[in-house]
């Protein structure tokens, strides 16, 4: 299992620089917002967490469709499915999601404080947004695995994956943004939405790999 984690992280970093593409996309999304909204610093600070979350969400959808497709094209997926008795397929998928998150989503979380400065956010809001991204983005990877597994046999399933999983990631977005707001604006609470966000991640960490395993098994032909 550790071998799979190593291989996938190495591939994510080495092949095509998926991590860098995601960060650049994130940067592009966040950097154009101030130009579009105009030089209203208060407004920027207020919408900052939401913009960071939307940017990170879209950037983390970028490489998701390749999660299983690359393995299917070179035949590795067959062997991963056949190894079910040694390494339960759901666990294999969990590890693949973890590797995907480490290689292409974690850099977004790391870059988010810098982009928070672009949005004129206060330090505490920046910290809160990074924390919510750290806790919430794994859920996107786990939900994304289901979409990627469903669309694995389609040659151009990228957009389909995004459309399929978007309704499911909206709760993650809502609680992530409201927790980040809560940290900066006093009357609103931080902890309750943050804990629900963590619960969502844990919930999808279980449901996602199992449903993805089901989808992958029935799609093999």
């Amino acid at each position, binding site marked *: *299992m*550790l*071998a*799979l984690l*190593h*291989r996938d992280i*190495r*591939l994510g970093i*080495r*092949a095509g620089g998926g991590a860098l593409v995601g960060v650049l996309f994130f940067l592009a999304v966040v950097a154009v917002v101030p130009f579009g909204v105009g030089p209203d610093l208060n407004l920027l600070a207020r919408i900052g967490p939401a913009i960071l979350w939307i940017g990170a969400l879209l950037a983390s959808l970028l490489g998701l469709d390749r999660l299983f497709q690359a393995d299917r*094209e*070179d*035949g*590795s997926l*067959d*062997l991963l*499915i*056949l*190894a*079910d*008795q*040694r*390494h339960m397929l759901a666990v294999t998928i969990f590890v693949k999601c973890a590797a995907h998150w480490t290689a292409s989503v974690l850099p977004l979380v790391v870059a988010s404080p810098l982009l928070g400065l672009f949005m004129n956010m206060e330090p505490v809001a920046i910290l809160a947004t990074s924390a919510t991204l750290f806790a919430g983005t794994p859920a996107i990877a786990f939900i994304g695995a289901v979409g990627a597994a469903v669309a694995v046999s389609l040659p151009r399933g990228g957009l389909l994956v995004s459309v399929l999983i978007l309704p499911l990631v909206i709760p993650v977005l809502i609680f992530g943004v409201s927790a980040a707001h809560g940290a900066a604006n006093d009357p609103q609470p931080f902890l309750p939405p943050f804990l629900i966000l963590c619960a969502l991640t844990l919930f999808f960490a279980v449901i996602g790999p199992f449903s993805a395993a089901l989808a992958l098994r029935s799609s*093999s*032909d």
Partner: protein
Amino acid sequence: MRLMATGLSGERAGEHVFGPLDFSISAGEALVVTGENGSGKSTLLRVVAGLLAPSAGSVSLEGAGDETIASSAHYLGHQNAMKTALTVEENLRFWRDFEGEPHLEIDEALEMVGLPDIGHLPFGYLSTGQKRRASIARLLVSYRPVWLLDEPTAGLDARSERQFAGLMRAHLEDGGLIMAATHVPLGIGGAREMVMGGVNA
């Protein structure tokens, strides 16, 4: 150990492809599946491996305890299951760790397939035949009694084919089982042959 199939039929997208077939392979035996293109050789191998559900009949491994065919077989399909961005050695090391039951060292396995000095090269740099040989080395780095081979010699030159025949003979002498789908004679003496019929046979 015995691989038994009874009344095995397969289909693809609801279309009948082959069967019903009855065959059995005992330890130390090889079964070579031949037939025209589209006669269902690959589908048969995928059904036996457990990647596709049979439309009728069953296939099972007797005398292997809790092991299923999937867990005691190496499946070598049309694709090589190697990442082009990683080196040959990294690829083999991954499969050796992931599949478990380590058998040969990676250098030894590469030497057995005649690629002793290329472990450090990215897999994508290799020629078609070298890629195939590297993926044959995967069969050697972790041990499985059953080998399910789909066109194993595609892209190999005559010398590598002979080398591979030697590897298969050694596997059979160790008490392994081989089921191979192929167009060309594999050069393993005493292998039984099963001819798959036409599309609707």
